[in-house]
C-alpha cells in the first residue's frame, strides 16, 4: 500500500492505513484467503507525487506485490497510475476522490471512494431540494482538486439556480477576508466550500469573526477530526457530504467504530470506513480469483456487485468507479459529525 503518512495529506493516509490493517487482521484471523495469510507492505508518499512514483515503483518491482491499495492523496495517483497499466498491477483506491482518475478509462484502477463529481452533484441537489437554498456562492481551491466544485455549479444551473459568484483561494491561505467579503457583497445565504480541512476551518473561523450568518457547506475532504480540532466552535452547524458517520445506527458500523476506537484510540472518520470497505472488497476479489494472477484479480474486482459495506452498497462500473445507492450528509454538532438527513436516492 502507498499512502501519505506525512505532509498535508497525512491525516487521510493514517486513517487509510489503520482501517486497512484492521480489516486485514480480521481476514487473517478468519483463516486468510483460501488458507493463505495476507501481508501489508506500506510505503509513505509524503503527499509528493514524485515520491509516490518512487514508492509505487519500489513496491511493484522490488517487493513484487501482486495488488496495490492506492494513495489517499488525490494528486499522487495521476503520477503513477499509467505505470500500473504497463505493469499489469490492479489498484483499489479507497480514499482518492479526484474525478480525473477514473475519467482516463484505465483498466487496472478501481475506486470505492465517492467520485467527487457525483458528490458535487448530490450536494447541489441536497442544497436545492432539502435546504431550499437559492442564494449560493462557491468558494473553491484554485487546483484541479478544487475545480471539481464547478460540477456543483453546473448541477445547480440544471436545477435552475445561478450561483452568485465563484471565489478561488490558494491552499494554506491565512486570511480569507477578501473572498468572504466579496461573497457578502453578493448577499449569499449559503457558501459551498471545495478544498481541504485546514482551509475549511480557517473559512469557518473568519465567518465567525466577520459574524456573517451564512450556512457553510463543504465537500468530503474536511470530514475528519482535524477539522473539529482546528475549527473549534466555529465549524458548528457546517454540513458536509460523505459516506459514513461514526454515530450511525447500523450495527456493523457500530461494531467497526468500537473496534477502531479500542485499537487506535480515536473515532474513525469516513475515510477509515471507506478504507475498511476497500480492503474487504479486495479480499472478496482475491477469494473469487482464487489465484495470485493479476488478470484474474482484475476481472474479479471489475465484477464486484452490490457489496454490502459500511459506506453503503457498492458496485464498480466499467470505468472502475463505485456507484453508491445512497450517500450521507453530515452536520457538525457538539464537536462531532452527526447524520443530517439521508440524501434523495440516486
Amino acid at each position: 500500500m502507498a499512502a501519505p503518512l506525512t505532509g498535508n495529506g497525512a491525516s487521510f493516509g493514517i486513517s487509510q492505513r489503520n482501517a486497512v490493517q484492521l480489516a486485514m487482521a480480521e481476514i487473517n484471523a478468519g483463516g486468510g484467503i483460501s488458507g493463505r495469510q495476507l501481508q501489508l507492505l506500506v510505503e509513505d508518499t509524503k503527499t509528493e507525487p514524485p515520491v509516490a512514483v518512487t514508492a509505487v515503483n519500489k513496491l511493484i518491482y522490488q517487493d513484487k506485490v501482486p495488488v496495490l491499495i492506492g494513495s489517499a492523496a488525490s494528486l499522487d495517483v495521476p503520477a503513477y497510475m499509467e505505470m500500473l497499466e504497463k505493469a499489469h498491477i490492479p489498484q483499489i483506491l479507497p480514499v482518492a476522490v479526484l474525478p480525473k482518475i477514473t475519467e482516463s478509462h484505465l483498466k487496472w484502477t478501481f475506486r470505492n471512494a465517492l467520485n467527487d463529481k457525483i458528490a458535487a452533484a448530490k450536494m447541489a441537489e441536497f442544497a436545492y431540494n432539502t435546504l431550499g437554498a437559492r442564494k449560493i456562492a462557491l468558494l473553491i481551491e484554485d487546483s484541479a482538486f478544487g475545480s471539481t466544485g464547478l460540477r456543483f455549479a453546473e448541477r445547480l444551473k440544471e436545477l435552475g439556480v445561478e450561483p452568485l459568484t465563484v471565489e478561488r483561494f490558494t491552499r494554506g491561505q491565512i486570511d480569507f477576508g477578501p473572498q468572504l467579503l466579496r461573497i457578502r457583497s453578493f448577499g449569499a445565504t449559503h457558501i459551498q466550500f471545495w478544498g481541504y480541512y485546514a482551509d475549511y476551518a480557517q473559512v469557518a473561523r473568519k465567518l465567525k469573526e466577520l459574524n456573517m450568518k451564512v450556512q457553510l457547506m463543504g465537500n468530503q475532504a474536511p470530514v475528519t477530526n482535524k477539522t473539529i480540532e482546528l475549527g473549534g466552535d466555529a465549524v458548528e452547524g457546517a454540513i458536509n457530504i460523505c459516506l459514513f458517520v461514526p454515530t450511525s445506527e447500523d450495527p456493523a458500523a457500530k461494531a467497526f467504530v468500537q473496534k477502531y476506537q479500542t485499537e487506535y484510540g480515536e473515532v474513525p472518520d469516513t475515510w477509515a470506513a471507506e478504507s475498511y470497505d476497500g480492503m474487504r472488497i479486495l479480499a472478496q476479489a482475491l477469494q473469487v480469483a482464487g489465484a495470485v494472477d493479476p488478470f484474474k484479480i482484475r476481472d474479479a474486482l471489475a465484477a464486484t456487485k452490490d457489496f454490502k459495506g459500511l459506506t453503503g452498497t457498492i458496485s464498480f462500473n466499467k470505468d472502475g468507479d463505485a456507484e453508491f445507492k445512497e450517500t450521507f450528509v453530515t452536520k457538525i454538532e457538539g464537536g462531532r459529525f452527526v447524520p443530517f438527513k439521508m440524501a434523495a436516492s440516486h
Partner: protein
Amino acid sequence: MNTLAQQILGGLTTGFIYALLALGFSLVYQSMRLINFAQGDLFMAGAFIGYLLAVKVHLPFLPVLVLTVTLCFFLGLAIERLTLAPRSRTASGVNLMIRTIGVSVFLQGSTLLLFGTEEYRFPDQLSGEPILFGGLVVSRSLVIVGTASLALMLVLWAFLKYTALGTAMRAASQDRTGAEMIGIDVPRTRSLAYALSAALAGAGGVLIGPLWYVHQSMGVMIGLKGFTAAVIGGMGSMPGAIVGGLCVGMIENLSTGYVSSTWKDAIVFGILLIMLSVRPDGIFRMRSAERA
C-alpha cells in the same frame, strides 16, 4: 468602495507580521551585511514555542508573547554564537549566507522531528467581537496584532535611539573598523542584532498563531515575503521595513481580491524582481551603508 477599504484593512494584519520579519532582516543586514535565510524558520520556531506555552502551560496571551520573545532572543543569541561567530572574520559573505541556510534547514528538521507535519491549533485568545468603525469591520485580531507589533517596534526604536548599547550597535553597523578602534565590542553588537531579529521573528510567530494554525513549513513562504518587504522598504532601514511590510500585506490582499489568488504570490515576487533590478535600495534609500 467599502469593500476596497475593507480589503486594504484586511491586508494590514498580515502586513504587520511581514513588517516584523522585515525589521529583523534589516537589523541583521545593517549590522552584519548578511541576509538571514533562517528568519522564516525562527518565525516558525516562535509560533511553536508560543503554541507549547499556550497549550501545555495554559498561559494567557500576553505572558505567552513576552516569554516567547525572550526565548527566541536567546535562541537567536545561541545560533549566532554557535554557527555564525566562529571564523566569521575570515569567512566570505557567501559562506555566512550558506550557514544561515544550514540553520534554516536544521530548524525545519527539528520541528519535523518533534511535531511532524500536522497542523496544530493555537488556542483562540484573540477572537472576539470585531469593532465596527465607520461601516468598516476592524477585526479584533488586527487591533491586537497591530498594537503588539507597534509596541515592539517602539521598544526596539527606543533601545536603538536612547540606550548606550543601542547607539553602539548603530555605530558598529555604520563603520565597523571605526567602532573597533574606539573600543566598541563589535562581535557582541552583531550577536545582539541577530538575537533581536530572532525575537522579532518569534513575536511574529506568536501573533500569527491564533489567526492561522501552526505547522512545520509555515515559515518558508512568510520568510520570503518578509524578504520582499525588507527590499521594497529599503534593506537596512527601519521605517522602510515597516512600510514595506504593510505594502506587501496590502498588495497580497488586493491581488487576491481583484486579480485572483492563484497569481497572488507571483505578483508579490514579481514586484520583488522589479524592485531588485530597478531600485535595489527600496523606497527609503539607506544613507550610509554601501549600495547593493
